[in-house]
């Protein structure tokens, strides 16, 4: 039973590293010219929209003034970074960001997998499709709508949940304004909006599993749960790990809009995250250099996390993302 393995992965054919002569290389290039032409838009996209803007990171080491431009602004070295690290709220903001991120990984991340496994067990394509559509539709609603719907449901001024609590004789709960309820509300909203959408890739990789494996295991007397445990899960393990690493990369990206909408004066101590701080301290106040420095810091943390997880996953014998 245990020897059931993941479906064979496509191993890229080893490319010859050196060409005997440059004419041969030219020939090869020429032969695949259309492929290279097709590559151009993609490469241009990355150069123009991803690499050129990195030039702008320079301003995090300057006191950037728009009318003087990058060339004219004064250099201040690490001033903005040291301001960030010495800001009294910095540790709190970083901690909030990491806690929300941890909740995303521990609570949200497994849910699409479980949901995909459950959807996969549904018999009948119609039901499968129907429920899948049903769970991924919320993804198309903007955060404004998601947060507004929750607002209407949980407000103390006639929200249905508080009315029910009152009806059954419990005390009303101030969900919107108490620091204790911010995190549960946040993660529930993430799950409600994103869980269905997250199942798509898992369902696709489940669909790629050879049905023969299931047949064989049924012959050996495996029940439904055993099949899930020994066939489906190992088969999508690679996908899970890849998605996990990608998720780690966006470690400090928790969705500015979502948190900003939930944020208010009463729950700021748990709700202020790096993104919302960039907005209030940086953009609303026009401190371009400072906000760029924060963004820079964020990217570096993300990069380090991805590299670490990638390394770990390779160590334990899985494929990384690169």
């Amino acid at each position: 039973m245990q020897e059931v393995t993941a479906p064979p992965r496509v191993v890229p054919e080893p490319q010859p590293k050196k060409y005997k002569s440059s004419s041969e290389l030219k020939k090869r290039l020429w032969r695949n010219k259309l492929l290279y032409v097709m590559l151009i838009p993609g490469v241009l996209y990355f150069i123009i929209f991803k690499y050129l803007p990195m030039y702008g990171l320079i301003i995090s080491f300057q006191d950037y003034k728009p009318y003087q431009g990058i060339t004219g602004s004064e250099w201040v070295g690490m001033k903005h970074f040291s301001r960030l690290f010495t800001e009294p709220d910095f540790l709190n903001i970083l901690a909030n960001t990491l806690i929300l991120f941890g909740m995303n990984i521990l609570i949200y991340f497994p849910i699409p997998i479980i949901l995909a496994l459950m959807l996969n067990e549904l018999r009948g394509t119609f039901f499968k499709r129907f429920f899948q559509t049903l769970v991924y539709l919320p993804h198309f609603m903007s955060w404004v709508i998601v947060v507004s719907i929750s607002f209407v449901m949980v407000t103390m001024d006639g929200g249905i949940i508080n009315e029910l609590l009152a009806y059954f004789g419990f005390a009303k709960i101030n969900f919107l304004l108490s620091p204790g309820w911010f995190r549960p509300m946040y993660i529930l909203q993430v799950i409600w909006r994103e869980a269905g959408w997250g199942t798509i890739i898992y369902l696709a990789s489940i669909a790629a599993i050879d049905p023969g494996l299931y047949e064989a295991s049924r012959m050996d007397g495996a029940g439904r749960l055993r099949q899930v445990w020994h066939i489906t899960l190992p088969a999508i393990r690679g996908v899970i790990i890849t998605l996990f690493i990608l998720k780690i990369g966006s470690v400090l990206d928790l969705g500015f809009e979502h948190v900003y909408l939930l944020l208010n004066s009463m729950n700021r101590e748990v709700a202020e995250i790096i993104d919302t701080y960039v907005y209030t301290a940086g953009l609303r106040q026009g401190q371009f250099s400072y906000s760029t420095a924060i963004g820079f810091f964020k990217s570096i943390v993300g990069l380090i996390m991805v590299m670490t997880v990638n390394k770990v996953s390779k160590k334990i014998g899985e494929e990384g993302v690169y």
Partner: protein
Amino acid sequence: MTKKSFTLLLSSLLTLSMLSACGGNNNKEAAATKDPGASTGTNTTATTDSATAEPEKPTEIKIMLPLNTTDTPPDTIKNEVEKLTNTKLTYQFFPADTYEEKLNSSFATGSLPQVTYLKNQTTFLQMKEAIKDGQFWEIGPLLSEFPNLNKLKPEILNNTKVDGKLYTLYIGRPLARQGIIYRKDWADKLGLKAPANTEELFAMAKAFTEQDPDGNGKKDTIGVVDRNELVYGAFKTVSSWFGTPNNWAEKDGQLAPEFTFPQYIDTMDFFKKLREGGYMNQDFAATSKTDAVNMFTSGKAGLYIGGSMQDIDSLNKDLIKNVPDAVLDTHSMVAGADGKFAQWMIPGYNNVVLFPKSAVKDEAELKKILKFFDYMMTPEVSNLMYWGIEGTHYTVVDGKAKATDNKELIEREVKGFKDSVIGEYETNGMYQSLNVLPGRIHAEELVLENVKYGVADPTAALDSATYTSKGVELQQIIADATYKYMYGQLDKAGFEKEVENWKSRGGAKIIEEYNAAYKK
């Protein structure tokens, strides 16, 4: 970048040559110039005195401004304005929602047009540094040459000065239009009069909550509806009634921020009591403006405080859809504990216009542009831009303008220009609006009455470098503490600790800087 500046150079050269050609034509009147040495030689003709009979070439002006509707207006109004002012105008409308972005990027690339409208006081504050850096033309010394611009109110011009110099023209707004919009039908039913002081205001909120004013036998109404905004919500307005200064006031011979005054604490106690009694919406610290307005127009709440009393028209329109026999009225004369009236005042403008040096090459060109604004402050042009074309967009009844019932037409063709009219009706002579709703007529009276008791912000024309760079961030500390106090999570000592926190993180410097500027 280089390409852009090159085109910019070319086009400015072109404009310059055209202007000098233009100047050459009218050179006969050199005597009118006040300071001939300052201008560039070819342009000694100041455009002040246009007694000349010769037809002038229309001045070309590019104008950038925020648009508060969805579509760019057609040229109907623009063409008329051009005829009246002898100009060739190019309007660049950008959606108000993303206007700051447009403003910042245009500024950063040096492509602001000759006439640049900002968006509001906040964008003006952010531009101050660049203004001090000499990126925009100073217009103060020139104003006296323009008879109409010269009518602009000095006290409001004063509020828009940067380092004591005037760089901007302003779009006027009433100084004190905040007050209460309330359910008069409820008050009548319960035998209540408009609240004369803060105690009666509290009593009214309580009665509206407890005495079933809508008569449906259920306890489903509340008194005050407020939102997550301390300035434009109810707090600031009510705090002025309690006698709290407008942002800053003198205390022991020094300027001190409002939240160090005992009246500020009194205001917080007032809202704390309202909330604890259930006489206002419990979630006000998380309620958006839309939600607050909806709560009021659905007939659930009886008092809408803060905001502009002139909003009664739109509130009334939505309310009578839900509650057909509702009657609204406005009120603002609420006395504090000492029996005195006081009203919070804004600096009297909601937007300003700047003239970037990168686009306006010399003083002669600046004067030509100012001349256009001088025209704009005549009744003909301001009416045209504010109300539209008489007979099409509005009619005159009893010397006042009555807008057509076709609101879409006005939105489409007039609104874009309406928001750019300099000054106010007292200075530019345009028609006032004809009001029919009694509450609105009352509001207009109160707006005038309010000014008599208006409390000005002494720092409106002062500068503090720390405030410009960190003020918004620091203000958050106070806002958070204020809400926590009103929700009972901070006591007086806790609130004062937060004030100390504000001071230690830059507030002390702000106090110092304002006081230094104040003494000057």
